[in-house]
């Protein structure tokens, strides 16, 4: 770097990539630093489900906004991003859950999100490998899937096309007021964006983000085995409840014909080893919904760490303790979906544009106000 950057983005995961893309598009000179390589952390471990979620009104607002941005961007994405507008089916096991599906549909309708309730027969028709006896499902056709590591790369390439620079294998040692310290090097800039995901607290102590471990299993290729991202309605509770461990039925058809099977949540620090017991539990849950998955061949398992916050909302905005420091982290399991909304919101705040959605619920200052104690 001969000329010092306007903005330094720390972390080239999908959230950092989206921030860099939006900032560079806004005309800022952006430098992106990553301790390892782009898209290699939590981004690489994620499912890549682009999903509207309604655990809270701000979550719905951010996911819906981001979904619109993904729909706009999709035609411009390279093929290796594997964007697939497969839609989501929220599967209801019983009448009580079906009632919740109907309520969910009303909420979505109020926000202009297309969704339809499927009867048991319609569900069986849409996904013949689901077990009989399910109560129905909510079909959200606007949801989709991407392959996260290449999605992050695609966003970085767009940023680079707008003058950004990416430096990989560069570990940031400290963040100061309008500066970043890397070894003996001091990089001065107007603003720093901490987009280090679950590692964000290492650079900005006080951020209430903890790693929330997840497991995934991927199968060999069975094209046509399922056509939609399948999620049990109970997934919302699994994601919301911040206690010990939970699993939920969550199966995704990849563009390759492979099946991605999730999901699990654990609070065990940074232990990246496979937990056999929770994999068994997770697969048992999947088999309960899709018995014939039993005869598919699993070729790989892995773990990843969701950056989780106490109130299930990301931190997007200024970190008022340090001049020039901004945070874009803590997206838990929704980082791929909400990356685009986060990047745009953050860039609007940095350059002083009117944001498209109310930034207050995501403001990191809520942590300083005590909401984030845990």
């Amino acid at each position, binding site marked *: 770097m001969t000329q010092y950057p306007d903005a330094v983005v720390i972390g080239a995961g999908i959230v950092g990539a989206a921030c860099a893309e939006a900032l560079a598009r806004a005309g800022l000179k952006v430098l992106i630093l990553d301790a390892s390589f782009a898209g290699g952390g939590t981004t690489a471990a994620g499912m890549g489900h682009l999903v509207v979620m309604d655990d809270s009104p701000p979550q719905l607002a951010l996911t819906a906004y981001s979904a619109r941005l993904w729909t706009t961007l999709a035609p411009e994405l390279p093929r290796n991003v594997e964007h697939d507008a497969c839609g989501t089916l929220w599967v209801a096991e019983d009448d009580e859950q079906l009632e919740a599906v109907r309520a969910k549909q009303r909420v979505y309708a109020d926000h202009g999100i297309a969704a339809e309730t499927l009867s048991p027969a319609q569900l069986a028709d849409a996904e013949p490998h689901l077990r009989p006896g399910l109560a129905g499902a909510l079909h959200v056709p606007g949801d989709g899937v991407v392959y996260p*590591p290449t999605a992050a790369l695609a966003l970085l390439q767009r940023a680079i096309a707008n003058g950004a620079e990416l430096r*990989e294998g560069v570990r940031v040692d400290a963040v100061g007021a309008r500066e970043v310290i890397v070894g003996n090097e001091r990089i001065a800039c107007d603003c720093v964006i901490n987009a280090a995901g679950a590692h964000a607290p290492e650079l900005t102590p006080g951020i209430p983000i903890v790693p929330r471990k997840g497991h995934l299993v991927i199968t060999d*290729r069975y094209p046509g085995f399922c056509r939609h991202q399948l999620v049990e309605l109970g997934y919302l509770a699994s994601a919301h409840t911040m206690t010990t461990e939970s699993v939920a039925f969550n199966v995704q058809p990849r563009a390759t014909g492979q099946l991605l099977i999730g999901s699990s949540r654990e609070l065990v620090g940074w232990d990246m080893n496979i937990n056999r017991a929770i994999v*068994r539990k997770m697969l048992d849950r999947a*088999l309960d919904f899709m018995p014939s*998955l039993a*005869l598919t061949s*699993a070729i790989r398992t892995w773990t990843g760490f969701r950056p989780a916050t106490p109130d299930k909302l990301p931190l997007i905005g200024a970190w008022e303790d340090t001049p020039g420091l901004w945070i874009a982290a803590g997206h838990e399991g929704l980082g791929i979906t909400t990356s685009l909304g986060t990047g745009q919101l953050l860039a609007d705040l940095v350059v002083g544009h009117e944001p498209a959605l109310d930034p207050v619920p995501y403001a990191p200052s809520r942590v300083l106000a005590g909401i984030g104690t845990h």
Partner: protein
Amino acid sequence: MTGEYFTTGEYAGTDAEVVVADVAVIGAGPAGIAAAASAAERGLRVALLDRGLESGGQIWRHINGVAIPRVAQQWLARLDKSGAQILRRTSVVDVSVDVAGFEILAESSGRALHIRVTNIILATGAREMFIPFDGWTLPGVMGIGGAQALLKSGGSFAGKRVVIAGSGPLMLPVAAALAESGARLVLVAEQAKRSAVARFAAGLWRTPSTLMQAARYRARFMSSSYSTGTWVTAAHGSDRLESVTVTNGRRTWRETADVLCTGYGLIPNVELARLIGCETRDGAVVVDDDQRTTIANVQAVGEVTGIGGAPLSLIEGEIAGLTVGSRLSVPLPLLRRRATFEAAARRMFDVFAPRAELRALPTPTTIVCRCEDVTYGVVQDAVCARQAKLHTRAGMGPCQGRTCMPGLEFLLAWHSDTVRPPIEPALVSILSSEVAKNAPSSFLSNSCVGDVYQ
């Protein structure tokens, strides 16, 4: 014997089978057979697991009871009498450690098998190392050991025009066996220099039986051409192999061929050892004089500890079988014989190390990952195996990178990526606790059968 080992229908409330034993020997090649027989003869309960159709591994592969060396027959008979429980067609999927010892999860004919043991002897053998070149994905291009396996499992090479081009001592017996079976050997090309091969051959006097064997092998394909310092640079054909391009650095020419056997020596199958946590060095499991690894109660024998051939594997297997679960000392003659064979193996490595020119074999459009069809040009810029996997899909297919990654590690100086369960593809039911109890026996509509085009 079965009653001692099996309790059925009793695993965690499922119908999975459980085997309880003192020792699990994983891999039934010479090393595993010797280990299992020696341990069982001491009265230990031994379970010998192997994914093959018959015991014997690659070197003693046989079907319908035909044509195996006398030493193999002797060991198989000894194994039979030893009382070891032999579990064929059984693939190890995972090993976990707890206070009681080890629990091995295996897949056997689509069902889960849980093997609980206090000791493990790893005899997982080796596989061939491939270096990719244009056309190596054409049907008809196969491993040197691959051709041997196909021959030994009933394949007929009679009348086929065969080129063998690669490296290492495996080429000679395979050439001899193919010639004997009626193949027309067009060319046997060893990439190592003539002087190096001569040095190796000269060293064989230390193990006279090996020298005689080499001479016999050579005699059997005398009529075909054997070249040193020669290697294949490309294979050609529209939908199957038709010809190959070979070079000796000065002259480049084509040979018509139906089959090309290629491979650059053997590499230890260390994945299971790494999963358990055993230390490896230079791609082989580190062991002490008693074949003990760095993990307590886990020993390793045979090619997984470094390529040394069947005679050395047998000695190592015997040593592990005699020392497993005890502090018995190893008979001195066994230790001396091991030392002799180890020295021979070390010489072999230097002689057959791939020459620098082989690093230039793949072109940017050469497919390196055969599972995912990823080209060399696409992976070349990655800084490590993990980045290549995540960004390009190389190594992400069902072979779990076992075919492409060793070659890429050679070409691009990468380190191996982590190992996680399942260490080979396994039915989802095997990894769950439902164990296919309620699963339908067949699930596939026609749309799910066959391959996908990307």
